[in-house]
């Protein structure tokens, strides 16, 4: 965070304040001082705003929390850096980013965590938290020093997309994480069943002759992981569900009282296997885009709260990474810029209310990550996103802030535009 101006007094006036954590949805003023929310509606005695933001006709909500953002630093700075991507986040109303451990080097020592934290603070655009590696170098063999990673600030541990081939190692890793009350972030994907595939094993992959990843690669992994979660009692989060069936399994586990949460990335709520029909490498995602039915079931699961976070799964790439035959291209979409407008579109298309939707972008992920952010209670850190829900704009290479322009939504009309972002009471972004 920048050292500047925590003493700034800010008034956000007359905005429609939606704070899902407190189930608030009303027009009100927000008074901010020393980086915190100090009052609503009426000014506290002696409050003289240094800055007033007129938020009429705008929505004021907690700063968004993105549960999975690849920043590409350290290790792949040709794609993006912490500075560029955190700036993109700020302009998209995102105040907290969670970086998975598959950087180069891997986040398996406090030094790497510290490096990322310092770079993020120097940039001052967004708060960056990290997941530590569950195993050393993510190799799935030796446990990482989880206690040290936790002490260094990691909010959880994960093996990212790297497989945990040995169930015994996985069991011990979960137990060890539970020892330190660390949440384990699991990417459900059976390495053997996925078999190096690059597309959903379904009609489209069959026609295109692309190596398929069956639905069972996800559901078998979820079943396997759930058994070990129950056995070890660890708190676990399932990352990036893609199948309706897996979402149902999570719903069942939650009903049974198993401490599990799960998320979905926004592209999976809009795209499906159909979108790879032209070998469009921009739609090459891992895990793969599934069927149209899966997409609807994922939307339903977001609405029901089974999936309590919607994330960008931001993976910026340099142009070359997507220039090749489909299977040879690097997977992933650059998603920070579109997280909010695509989510808002979801509220329009489905019966999901704005309150529930914003919950999945704020309080939902905050709870999963165990962070005190994502709310506008009195005394809360003033991470705030102000947006004009009716402003239309076009996503193009000029408006896009991320270094990675790899998105199939390029050229699309977006509705809902962030006008201001506050990070701990500092205005880190203003739409000019």
């Amino acid at each position, binding site marked *: 965070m920048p050292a500047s101006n925590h003493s700034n007094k800010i008034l956000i006036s007359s905005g429609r304040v939606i704070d899902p954590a407190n189930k608030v949805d009303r027009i009100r003023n927000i008074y901010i001082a020393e980086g915190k929310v100090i009052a609503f509606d009426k000014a506290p005695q002696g409050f003289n705003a240094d800055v007033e933001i007129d938020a009429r006709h705008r929505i004021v909500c907690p700063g968004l929390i993105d549960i999975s953002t690849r920043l590409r630093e350290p290790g792949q700075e040709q794609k993006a850096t912490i500075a560029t991507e955190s700036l993109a986040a700020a302009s998209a109303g995102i105040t907290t980013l969670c970086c998975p451990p598959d950087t180069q080097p891997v986040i398996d020592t406090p030094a790497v965590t510290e490096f990322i934290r310092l770079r993020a603070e120097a940039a001052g655009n967004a708060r960056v938290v990290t997941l530590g590696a569950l195993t050393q170098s993510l190799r799935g063999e030796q446990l990482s020093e989880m206690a040290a990673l936790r002490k260094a600030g990691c909010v959880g541990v994960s093996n990212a997309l790297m497989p945990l081939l040995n169930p015994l190692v996985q069991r011990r890793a979960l137990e060890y994480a539970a020892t330190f009350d660390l949440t384990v972030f699991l990417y459900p994907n059976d390495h053997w069943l996925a078999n190096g595939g690059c597309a959903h*094993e*379904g*009609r489209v*992959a*069959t*026609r*295109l*002759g*692309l*190596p*398929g990843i*069956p639905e069972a690669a996800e559901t078998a992994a979820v079943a396997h992981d759930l058994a070990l979660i129950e056995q070890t009692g660890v708190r676990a989060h399932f990352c990036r569900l893609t199948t309706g069936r897996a979402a149902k399994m999570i719903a069942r586990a939650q009903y049974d009282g198993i401490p599990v949460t799960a998320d979905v990335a926004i592209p999976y709520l809009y795209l499906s296997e159909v979108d790879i*029909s*032209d*070998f469009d490498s921009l739609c090459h995602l891992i895990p793969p885009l599934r069927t149209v039915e899966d997409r609807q079931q994922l939307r339903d699961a977001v609405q029901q709260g089974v999936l309590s976070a919607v994330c960008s799964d931001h993976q910026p790439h340099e142009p*070359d990474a997507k*220039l*090749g*035959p*489909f*299977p*040879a291209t690097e997977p992933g979409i650059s998603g920070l810029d579109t997280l909010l407008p695509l989510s808002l579109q979801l509220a329009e298309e489905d019966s999901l209310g704005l309150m529930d939707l914003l919950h999945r972008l704020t309080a939902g992920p905050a709870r999963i990550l165990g962070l005190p952010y994502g709310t506008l209670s009195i005394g809360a850190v003033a991470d705030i996103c102000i947006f004009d829900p009716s402003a239309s704009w076009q996503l193009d290479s000029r408006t896009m802030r991320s270094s990675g322009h790899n998105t199939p939504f390029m050229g699309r009309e977006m509705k809902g535009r962030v006008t201001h972002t506050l990070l701990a009471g500092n205005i880190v972004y203003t739409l000019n």
Partner: protein
Amino acid sequence: MSRHNLQIDKNGRLRHFLSISGLNRQLMTEILDTAESFAGVTAQTVKKVPLLRGKTIVNLFFEASTRTRTTFELAAKRLSADVLNINITQSSTVKGETLLDTLRNLEAMHVDMFIVRHADSGAAHFIAANTAPHISVINAGDGSHSHPTQAMLDMYTIRRVKGPDFGALRVAIVGDILHSRVARSQIHALNILNTGEVRVVAPKTLLPAHAESLGAQVYNDLQAGIKDVDVIIMLRLQRERMQGAFLPSEHEYYELFGLTEEKLVHASPDVTVMHPGPINRGVEMDSDVADGPRSVILEQVTHGIAVRMAVMSMAMSRKEGPSG
């Protein structure tokens, strides 16, 4: 961009030849008729026509091939083109050059056509979408996706043997459908030509998900699958399928899916047997069948030259100005 538009220009002419899907019956028939006109050339003493004289055609093979590369080379030479064979498995990409860089370098040498084989599905589409506008791309096999000239030469062979009425035919494709670009292209082609019945026959491990969605009836039993069929197309079984746990053994595969004279009695009495080659004798097919009177396997190879001449000349003649 649409895959279909990519290979057909705005006048409906062949610009590239990337996949069977997206072709219409008229264009397919034109390819077959053009091939027919070239068939005479290959039988002459002087086996050349000057259609592509002065043109440079690059055989860009990222995957090993003998038959396909050779027939493309012969086809190009019989059209009087200059041919460059580039075997990329032992070339630049090994040194870290990207596919696009390789293309740019070849374009800089003023070539006119790429014949591409690549292990990745979609590779030919990618090259066609990214190459210089004057260059035509012919797909000589991409991953498990498409092998359109093979499918065309098979249609050509069927038409020669059975006549032009595909509606009267039952055709069974037997073997490793899952990994086969040949099967996918054949099924598309047979459907576009309104074939009476298209069947695929394989154990479930060698069938893709929703195989029926390709446009074929699915059989897991060889006897039932070839019952009363007029054409049987056997596919090559890669030996590495045993290691991949697709099959227990060559022996059991041969027992269940290998084509023998005894099993052929279930097919139509005048059944024609085809194979894209190379054959694993005693695995997918008995030698008696492969060398027997119903087999047209060697004719397929001969027809491959005429069909490839047809496709190359059509893709090149689309442009302004005569080619030769």
